[in-house]
């Protein structure tokens, strides 16, 4: 039974919203999964029935994604397509659509489920989340094919709606990796490694600061993928005291079948050799070590540069701040752009008091609030008179794939009285955060009626928490522990002790540092790294030289022969 896309319901835009991304090979894995809904299995066994369901699903998901984007980021004021329930005629705010016919209905009053029962149609989907409901199982069912399809459809719609600020090109469409015939054969015989890094790290003497940062690296999806795909092979690297090699070794150890705690002795030793200020067994600040480690990894990466570096650290953590200073007298705005690897947030306002209801969002608002500069702090280049009042505002110009936040809990009192105080004020951090309100683009676009006119899509600004670092005790004698997420489960890491934990324990733990990863990544078109291009040119040149030498030698031999023959 096939279903035809209902253009009247879903609008005239092409239903081929995505350049035919086929579900990848791995979706076949779910066929052997006994938990899989048997009804989906039987429908998918018939190719034409499967195609019907899949096409309808794609159409519905793409339609809803476009519609949401258009109402949140209106290019112009126009009516949003609003289907009504086929049972009660009310406008649908959360449409559920039958995957076998053109019926759409309400979930909360059971209109869609009644339709399924009455017509014997099996599946319907929630247009927003792509969740598929099976009326036989009487529950929502999970299927790898459907999940991948949802993701690829939504991403494709987003890609088409992303407007670049600088370059005129459209956004690079995501291309899943499809193994070639040879690669598939090789993959069949390769032993698999469990892709989970839940391994404790031994404390080598006040090194908990090192352990928590290493755990945040281990559970960082971009760093993990880079080192697990052998991008810096420590056996081929010729440098000594190479922190990248240490990272490679660390990942090898963590993702090995051994479960017992691992002691990162050589990582520690290399860190000491490269950064003398980090050496010694005294307690160090985890954030200082974080920055030191990032710089060391950047410094030992192949092909790193001082400006616009493409190393794994910059690709993962590098963003940009923009600082706009507006002269109150003449209105000139001077903008400065600065690179950043992480964001350090104050817990106290300028007056010195700690707010009572601190959240990550409130800290970010404080960070990007316009600030009056005193008359002596600024002189406008346009105005002839010096020292005017000016307003400075910070915003985030470029968001990195991984956002690292540090809450400034250690304050050095300038009054010179007591020892530096630790600020234990509780901070609430969310599981996900939308960074749009703090970006330069969105800040400049907000105007009329507080409507955010930034072009979106929202997914480019959504970040998910994956690690939290905690500090207990005072400044000098404290202990670092951390939480990290593996897939959907949270774990607590206390040096060598790793225990299952819950989301609420993690969120209630009062963070010192926390790490978020962007939900949907965006890509540049693939470009060969410059050092590879250089090496290839070298090889070509060497081969040409060889040929010349060979030709010259042959000529010598010929000449000698000719001389012999001629001499007779």
């Amino acid at each position, binding site marked *: 039974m096939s279903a035809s896309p209902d253009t009247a319901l879903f609008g005239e835009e092409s239903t081929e919203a995505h350049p035919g991304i086929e579900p990848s090979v791995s979706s076949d894995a779910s066929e052997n999964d006994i938990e899989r809904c048997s009804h989906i299995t039987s429908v998918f066994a018939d190719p034409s029935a499967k195609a019907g369901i899949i096409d309808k699903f794609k159409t519905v998901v793409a339609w809803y994604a476009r519609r949401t984007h258009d*109402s949140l980021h209106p290019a112009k004021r126009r009516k949003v397509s609003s289907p009504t329930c086929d049972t009660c005629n*009310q406008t649908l705010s959360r449409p559920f659509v039958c995957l076998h016919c053109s019926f759409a209905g309400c979930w909360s009053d059971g209109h869609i489920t009644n339709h399924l029962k009455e017509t014997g149609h099996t599946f319907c989907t929630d247009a927003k989340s792509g969740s598929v409901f099976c009326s036989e199982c009487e529950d929502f069912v999970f299927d790898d094919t459907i999940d991948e399809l949802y993701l690829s459809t939504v991403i494709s719609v987003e890609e088409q709606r992303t407007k670049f600020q600088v370059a005129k090109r459209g956004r690079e469409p995501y291309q899943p990796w499809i193994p070639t015939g040879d690669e598939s054969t090789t993959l069949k015989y390769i032993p698999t490694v469990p892709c989970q890094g839940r391994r404790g790290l031994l404390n080598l003497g006040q090194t908990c600061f090192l352990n928590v940062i290493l755990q945040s690296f281990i559970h960082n999806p971009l760093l993990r993928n880079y080192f697990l795909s052998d991008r810096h092979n420590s056996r081929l690297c010729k440098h000594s005291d190479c922190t990248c090699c240490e990272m490679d070794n660390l990942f090898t150890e963590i993702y090995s079948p051994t479960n017992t705690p691992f002691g990162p002795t050589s990582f520690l030793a290399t860190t000491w050799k490269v950064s003398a200020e980090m050496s010694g067994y005294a307690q160090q600040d985890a954030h200082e070590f974080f920055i030191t480690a990032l710089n060391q990894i950047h410094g030992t990466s192949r092909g790193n540069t001082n400006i616009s570096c493409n190393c794994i650290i910059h690709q993962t953590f590098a963003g940009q701040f923009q600082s706009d200073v507006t002269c109150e007298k003449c209105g000139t705005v001077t903008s400065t752009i600065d690179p950043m690897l992480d964001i350090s947030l104050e817990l106290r306002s300028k007056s010195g008091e700690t707010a009572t209801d601190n959240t990550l969002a409130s800290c970010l608002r404080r960070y990007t609030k316009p600030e009056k500069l005193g008359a002596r702090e600024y002189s406008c280049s346009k105005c002839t008179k010096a020292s005017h009042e000016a307003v400075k505002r910070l915003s985030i110009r470029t968001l990195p794939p991984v956002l690292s936040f540090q809450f400034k809990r250690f304050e050095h009192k300038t009054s010179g009285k007591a020892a530096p105080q630790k600020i234990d004020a509780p901070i609430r951090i969310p599981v996900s955060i939308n960074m749009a309100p703090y970006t330069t683009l969105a800040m400049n676009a907000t105007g009329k009626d507080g409507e955010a006119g930034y072009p979106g899509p929202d997914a480019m600004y959504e970040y998910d928490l994956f690690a939290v670092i905690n500090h207990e005790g005072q400044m000098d004698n404290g202990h670092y522990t951390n939480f990290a997420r593996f897939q959907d489960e949270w774990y607590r890491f206390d040096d060598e002790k790793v225990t299952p934990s819950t989301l609420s324990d993690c*969120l209630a733990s009062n963070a010192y540092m926390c790490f978020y990863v962007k939900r949907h990544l965006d890509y540049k078109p693939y470009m060969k790294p410059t050092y590879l291009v250089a090496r290839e040119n070298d090889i070509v040149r060497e081969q040409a030289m060889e040929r010349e030498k060979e030709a010259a030698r042959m000529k010598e031999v010929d000449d000698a022969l000719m001389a012999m023959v001629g001499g007779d």
Partner: protein
Amino acid sequence: MSKSTSEAETLYVEVHRRMIESGEWDRILHQLSSKLSESGWTDDLLHRAKENSRSMDPLSLQTILQELLSHAQTSVPLSVKREITTLIKQFVKEQFEK
């Protein structure tokens, strides 16, 4: 009695339709989502749903929804309720003025 309730119902359906068609529904929902997330309401529900479903047999979305619905409705922070109600009131007012 029944006449005024059906009048109120007709009114509700009309305002509801206009709100969705103008895209205002999505915009208000977006604001509601971000306020609820900042207050920790969303994460609390996520945590409860996860912990409830750990020992649930048979696992079903309907059961999870039933167990959480009343808590979800009552635990919405008052300030969020007030702010969103204001936005909705504003929209309804504008519709009457047109």
